[in-house]
């Protein structure tokens, strides 16, 4: 029982990332009808927002500390971050420590701006072109974004730790009545899951309970009629692209402490997120979320020793296998609607 619970928990953090990226992909697909191969790159840029903010906050100048000496007996040069100078050493250290959560605030405007720029500058011109062209141009865009990040940040992963407070693990087993040390789980991953749930809930609430969201949903169902009613649906869809970019970016920001960001992390996630979207059903938001968590948990179960000894390497292929089976058995995916991408 506790082993099963542990695997489910293990699957949740990856599943959260899949679900968030797939949610953004589906938002873009459902509103604009564009297959966005650059979505993984947006996830990656989000993670690098965290890296950038951390670097900005840790910008330092050198002071000579008279109280300490190095092994030669000379006064030691100490790097002093500017934030520590401005806000005092303790608050400064705390700010640097909390750079990843702060990056959430930093990344939202950045990602929305990037999303607007991409939609207005590029994707707008591809609505009338075939899906293959949309795939190709966003694939090119992904390469470009990835290479720009590589140029500025290098090819190596950059460690971006979470605040010290969340660095350790929590013994969840104790809380729900199992033996101590049966289910020990890194706290940041729990926070990631909670955060993902919050974002997903937020997006759904936004679409469900606001007038703006209602118009967007109407536009998803029948764009032409909504346009004929005198509503500028294009502008709303552009905003939705910005929101989808922000969702991917936030997923990236919070993922930075779990895996040190490198420039091709987006591509690695993109392939799986596409599989997730297709399994969930193209254009179905609940389907994307459901499939994201399901496949994440499935992957973590397939990675157990029991599974890998029974069928060697099952953890590597299980997601693709499931995707193939689902597509053949239920071509529209788990929760796909009729008439989406049927041409």
């Amino acid at each position, binding site marked *: 029982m506790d082993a099963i619970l542990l695997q489910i928990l293990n699957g949740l953090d990856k599943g959260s990332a899949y679900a968030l990226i797939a949610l953004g992909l589906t938002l873009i697909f459902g509103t604009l009808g564009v*297959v966005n191969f650059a979505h993984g790159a947006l996830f990656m840029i989000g993670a690098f927002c965290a890296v950038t903010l951390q670097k900005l906050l840790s910008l330092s100048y050198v002071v000579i500390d008279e109280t300490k000496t190095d092994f030669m007996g000379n006064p030691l040069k100490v790097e002093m971050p500017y934030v520590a100078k401005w806000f005092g050493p303790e608050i400064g250290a705390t700010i640097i420590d909390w750079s990843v959560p702060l990056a959430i605030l930093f990344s939202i405007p950045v990602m929305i701006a990037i999303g607007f720029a991409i939609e207005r500058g*590029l994707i707008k*011109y591809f609505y009338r072109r*075939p*899906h*293959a*062209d949309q*795939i*190709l*141009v966003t*694939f*090119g*865009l*992904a*390469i*470009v974004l*990835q*290479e*720009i990040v*590589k*140029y500025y940040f290098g090819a190596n992963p950059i460690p971006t730790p979470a605040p010290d407070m969340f660095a350790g693990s929590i013994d969840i087993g104790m809380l729900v009545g199992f033996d101590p040390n049966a289910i020990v789980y890194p706290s940041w991953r729990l926070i990631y899951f909670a955060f993902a749930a919050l974002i997903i809930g937020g997006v759904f609430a936004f679409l469900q309970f606001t007038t703006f969201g209602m118009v967007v949903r109407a536009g998803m169902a029948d764009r032409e009629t909504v346009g004929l009613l005198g509503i500028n649906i294009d502008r709303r869809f552009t905003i939705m692209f910005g929101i989808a970019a922000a969702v991917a970016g936030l997923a990236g920001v919070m993922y930075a402490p779990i895996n040190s960001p490198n420039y091709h992390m987006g*591509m690695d996630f993109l*392939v799986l997120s*596409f*599989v997730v979207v*297709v399994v969930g059903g*193209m254009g179905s938001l609940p389907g994307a979320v459901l499939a994201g968590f399901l496949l994440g948990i499935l992957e973590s179960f397939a990675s157990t020793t029991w599974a890998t000894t029974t069928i*060697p*390497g099952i953890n*590597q*292929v299980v997601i*693709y*296998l499931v*995707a*193939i089976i689902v*597509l*053949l058995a239920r*071509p529209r995916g788990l929760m796909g609607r009729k008439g989406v*991408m049927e*041409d």
Partner: protein
Amino acid sequence: MLGLNGRDTTVFVIVTVLAIMAPFLLNPFPTESGLAQFNAGYPDLMQRFAIFAIFAIGFNILFGLTGYLSFGHAAFLGVGSYAAVWIFKLFTYNVVPAILFSVVIGAIFALAIGFISLRRSGIYFAILTLAFAQMSYALAYSVLSNPKFNLTNGETGLQVYPGDLQMFHNPERVPDLPHLFGLSMRANYELSVGGWDFNFNAGYYLCAAILLLMFYLSMRIFRSPFGMMLRAIKSNQTRMTYTGLNARPYALAAFVISGMYAGLAGGLMAAVDPLTGAERMQWTASGEVVLMTILGGAGTLIGPILGAGFIKYFENIFSKINDSVLHAWFAALPDGLEDFLVAIIYPFIGKGWHLTLGILFMLVVIFLPGGLVEGGQRIGRLFRSRKTRKGETDEATQSTPAE
């Protein structure tokens, strides 16, 4: 000639001449001169030109004609390579059985994957092929390299070891390397004329000969009734179905043919260098062949060859230019300007060459859906329309070569 019309014969003759003369054409600069770094006439790169051209021609038969965008073609190239290396390991270093076997294996894989993937079209097809390719990659990379059943040798890559069986291999009579009935694939004749060195490499000429054969075959497919059916799938599959034709067998045939081309390319890759690894199957490799075909011009005959040559040339030549080379180029300019120019150009060359490729690719997709071929046609039309400004009918606007 050979069942081709006049225009196609000209194209074919040009490609043949280019392929035969490649060692000269790709080495236009004397070896000692500063421009020698732009020479691409070394065997390794010439072989890659030919092999990737074959790969892209095959991909074009699927994507260019039927419009099915496969994001998993590298899987067939990978299994072709593995098949060829296994022939080397088990039987003989002769490349003929190895290449034939790699084509057969490529066809079998393409049949299996195509049979399932072609149930869906559009984005679903792209993702299904992608999923299959990533699965093959994962299988080759880790699963099939366990000690009990080592088919791929994991991340080390598969290669021929001294203890291998090699049943029909006789090291005394034939070279201890991949060979064509005794002619080693590494055999190289270097011709020095003045300051120039030209390399004539057995491996390259084998690849070039097969490339010509495959190019001829693709021309025949493009011009055949079968090719017409494939184009019908691209332009309007529903209408094709209404006329009483089932599109799936045609699409599957195109998929298998392009899988065989990819398997052949993989076999040749192993033939010129008898080792292989799982990274050949990764989806970035599939993306590369998509880039090549689109960049050159999807649906055109010559486009994939141009695209493959273009990408491989710049990948190997551009990436060698570093900032010291750049500084040497602009050394004549005033220092401030020199640094400024170098700072502007540097992100786009050397290690940043992929950035250039990405931008170029986007520009082509946005402005030139027909790729380099369409670009060339537009320029040609511009010149011709100036000449025939008055009265005469403009021939260039009517003919759409290789489409």
